[in-house]
């Protein structure tokens, strides 16, 4: 048995931890001498982009590396015990009592063939309690994590619950053993903004009650800012900066941290106020050989010493360290992008809509039920304008996009017009001109580009089909397109698998623009990308719009991103348009109660608290939407029977600002500036 744990032992201590993976016969370094301590009750955030090794650190702390991974050197002490020296039985005991984990995608982390109750009770049976005792304690635990009907949930299977509900179950399981260390690996990445904030609130509340220390892993600075006391910034398997959260975010002392903070569209940043800054280059491949400072290749302040000598973790005052020779000059990192705002052509367009829909409706027939995905939607999109489309998942955003593109056929009576001419419901019935005019950029570039084709062939094919050019004329257009999306022509012969996420999305954008489209639908184009690459793509979209006058229908669940790019914003709920107006008017009061709740869920990078509005209950199903105003079952500003009985019209409450609510603009402005919303009684 290892030495008795010291009284004030750290929950987790990593000491110069080196981890490597064996890929096709060679060992690749993933963690390069990571050291960190998490004191008892402390919440430590580990932030970094994909491939920097943060999940590896988490699993190393549980000694659960995949078969081809190994700890090359360094020490791991969990709750005072030396993890690496332990026997398998001891590791199992540790996992059963001391350490637990919450995973990224909750639904797949639960066994599809076993009921929820059984899986939660299992945590208790391991610690020796009897079957029914475990059952009771499981129900208690589920109540603790604010699950309204624990007995009902226990009988159900994971696929019958929403992502948010499953994550609560996993948190219940994790906290059931009252662990010394709770590890959360990107717990809310896959969830909607509203659900995300609920889960984060739950974790914060639980921490107080269970006094476990927390290792919180995320790629999102806002989430870390909100949840953690101290933070470590990881890049290419090495901690480059560490310190108290406020310190690190307000006074970043490493170029990478500085660059990261500049990439995030926060605090109301907008394209016409100033371009987002980016970090040049790519994230290094898994286990790449990096001499000297790991960030040297992409750092604006790099000097010879950086490439020769690996900087140590230097102390920069009040418990804040940075691994940079020139940490004091970090914040003067030169901008990569010129801060000049992107002047948009939209302003001087003559305002005639190039694309409009009138009472667009779409009903799906599943297992005999009629599911109304989109209901009576009327929208217009002006020349060179960006219309942001927001709403929780399942609100019908993507269906609307597929309807406009002709990938899904709308119901009878739906009208879609392009430049005044009726657009056929099915893509195959549209002529080449109409096909060229409306294109799309998908969310996941890996799936959107045929992985067997070279980049050249992908773009060339789009040019041939949409524009009909061939031979040298096509080649030169291809070169121009590549330049316009800042894609290095020398890589034109590569296949998608060999390119980074950002580069692939640039190819997808080039393909969309091959036919000089009038409208491009962007369906969450940046949510699959890393933060630093995200900014570059947003800037690119903005520049292309400015240059070519293309209108965007921009779909995203990240309101910061939407705010940065959109001129006007439409808010969707259960397939209906709830609010439509200019970006700034929608983002400020008065707002439709649903929009108000949506915005309150968005954490601010600067960590300033904002009155949180929690939406009760689950999103109702499209199959049988609630009567009257569809939002009345969850609306924090529920007036009374009128909301339940009468569906409000989408009316223009202010010039250019419409919403679907019984309140008038003045009433809501006054309400929203004073009284925080609270619900007298829950809807029937």
């Amino acid at each position, binding site marked *: 048995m290892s030495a008795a744990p010291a009284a004030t032992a750290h929950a987790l201590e990593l000491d110069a931890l080196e981890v490597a993976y064996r890929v096709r016969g060679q060992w690749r370094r993933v963690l390069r001498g990571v050291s960190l301590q998490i004191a008892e009750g402390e919440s430590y955030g580990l932030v970094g982009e994909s491939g920097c090794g943060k999940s590896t650190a988490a699993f190393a702390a549980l000694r659960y590396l995949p078969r081809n991974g190994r700890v090359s050197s360094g020490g791991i002490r969990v709750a005072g015990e030396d993890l690496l020296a332990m026997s398998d039985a001891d590791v199992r005991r540790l*996992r*059963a009592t001391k350490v637990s*984990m919450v995973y990224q995608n909750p639904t797949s*982390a639960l*066994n599809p*063939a076993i009921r929820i109750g059984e899986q939660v009770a299992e*945590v208790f049976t*391991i610690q020796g309690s009897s079957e029914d005792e475990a059952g009771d304690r499981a129900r208690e635990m589920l109540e603790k994590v604010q699950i309204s009907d624990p007995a009902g949930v226990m009988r159900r299977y994971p*696929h019958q619950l929403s992502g948010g509900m499953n994550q609560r179950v996993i948190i219940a399981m994790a906290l059931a053993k009252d662990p010394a260390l709770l590890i959360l690996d990107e717990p809310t990445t896959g969830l909607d903004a509203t659900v995300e904030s609920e889960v984060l609130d739950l974790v914060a509340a639980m921490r107080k009650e269970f006094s476990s220390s927390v290792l919180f892993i995320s790629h999102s600075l806002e989430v870390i800012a909100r949840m953690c006391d101290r933070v470590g910034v990881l890049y290419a398997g090495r901690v480059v900066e560490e310190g108290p959260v406020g310190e690190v975010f307000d006074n970043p002392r490493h170029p990478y941290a500085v660059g990261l903070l500049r990439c995030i569209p926060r605090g109301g940043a907008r394209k016409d106020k100033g371009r987002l800054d980016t970090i040049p280059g790519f994230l290094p491949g898994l286990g790449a050989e990096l001499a000297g400072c790991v960030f040297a290749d992409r750092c604006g302040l790099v000097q010879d010493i950086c490439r020769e000598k690996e900087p140590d973790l230097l102390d920069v005052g009040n418990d804040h360290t940075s691994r940079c020779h020139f940490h004091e000059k970090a914040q003067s990192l030169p901008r990569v992008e010129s801060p000049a705002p992107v002047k948009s052509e939209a302003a001087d367009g003559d305002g005639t809509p190039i694309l409009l829909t009138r009472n667009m409706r779409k009903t799906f027939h599943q*297992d005999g039920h009629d599911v109304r995905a989109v209901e009576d939607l009327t929208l217009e999109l002006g020349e060179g304008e960006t219309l942001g489309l927001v709403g929780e998942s399942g609100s019908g955003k993507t269906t609307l996009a597929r309807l406009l593109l002709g990938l899904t056929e709308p119901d009878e009576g739906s009208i879609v017009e392009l430049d005044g001419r009726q657009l056929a419901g099915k893509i195959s019935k549209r002529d080449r001109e109409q096909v060229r005019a409306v294109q799309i950029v998908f969310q996941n570039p890996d799936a959107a580009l045929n992985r067997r084709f070279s980049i050249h062939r992908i773009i060339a094919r789009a040019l041939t089909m949409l524009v009909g050019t061939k031979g040298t004329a096509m080649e030169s257009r291809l070169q121009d397109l590549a330049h316009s999306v800042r894609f290095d022509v020398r890589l034109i012969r590569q296949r998608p698998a060999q390119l980074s996420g950002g580069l692939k999305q640039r190819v997808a954008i080039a393909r969309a623009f091959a036919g000089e489209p009038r409208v491009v639908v962007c369906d969450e184009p940046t949510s699959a990308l890393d933060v630093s690459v995200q900014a570059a793509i947003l800037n690119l979209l903005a520049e292309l719009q400015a240059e070519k006058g293309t209108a965007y229908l921009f779909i995203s669940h990240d309101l910061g991103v939407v705010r940065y790019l959109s001129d006007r914003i439409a808010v969707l709920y259960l397939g209906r348009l709830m609010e439509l107006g200019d970006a700034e008017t929608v983002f400020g009061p008065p707002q439709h109660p649903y929009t108000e709740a949506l915005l309150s869920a968005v954490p601010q990078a600067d960590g300033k608290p904002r009155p949180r509005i929690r939406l009760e209950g689950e999103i109702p199903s499209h199959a049988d939407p609630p009567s009257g105003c569809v939002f009345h079952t969850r609306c924090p500003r529920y007036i009374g029977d009128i909301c339940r009985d009468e569906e409000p019209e989408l009316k223009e409450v202010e010039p250019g600002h419409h919403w679907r609510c019984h309140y008038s603009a003045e009433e809501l402005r006054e309400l929203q500036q004073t009284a925080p919303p609270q619900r007298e009684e829950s809807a029937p």
Partner: protein
Amino acid sequence: MAGFIGKRLVLSLITLLLLSIIVFVGSQVLPGDVGRNILGPFADQQAVDALNEQLGANESLISQYLDWIGGVLTLDMGDSLAFRRPVQEVLGDALVNSAKLALLAFIIVVPLSIAGGVYAALREGSTRDRLISLGGLSATAVPDFVWAVLLILVFSLVLGILPATATAPPESGFFTQVEYLILPAFCLVFVLFGYIARMARAGTIEALDADYTRTAVIKGLPQRTVVRRHVLRNSLLPTIAVIATQCGYLIGGLLVIETIFNYQGIGQSLFRAAQEKDFPLLQSGVMIVGIVYLVATLLADIAYSVLNPRVRLAQES
């Protein structure tokens, strides 16, 4: 669940109808006619025509097919032209024989191959894993008649401990019948083992790599419990479907084994019916094999949805 089964039944009926049409069209190709095949080539043409007339083999094949379909609907599959006995009787005995052999092979191979597959998956990459999957796969591909010849050579002729043919003397007890069926059953075991083991192994590996297994391990459960409670339930699902597809082979596809071991199964009845152009017997025989195959796949799908709640509840909601 009922809707799901109902839909599958209708689809199966359509497949059966297609099956009967394919066999009907196919059998046009066979030379000669029943009368000629019974009386042989040297019989007088007059006698052949008279016999054909008697047996009703002279009617146009379209009307024969319609009669047959009419009969099937009233569960009377007509008489075998060659044996002049109701088809049910001729096929009944053959089906019982085939079922006995198939059952014995089934009881031996299913547990063996699933255990083998799971064992190999748990030691993925080790020599034992390669041995089982490679050995199984090779055994599957070696023709069943090669296994039959080798087994007879060793166990019946050299060692003399097992009979060389499969039909036990009449009225022999259960164990004697099993003793006679051991050799042919093992030919089937060799052929089926690799096929099922490979699927069980793939299913288990997939389940082992799944997130829920990781959750179970990090909960601190010992490996045995993780495998028993979390992995097996999900890994055996694909195996069930594979086992079902083999039922068709187990019942109708054993002509070679039946020939070598002189065993009167469905395979031989169909083979002789095709050669003698005994239309009702051939058609009904293929139908029975078709029904066995479709019922097996239907049962597999039902079992799959019962064991896999996501599929089961999707139907009910």
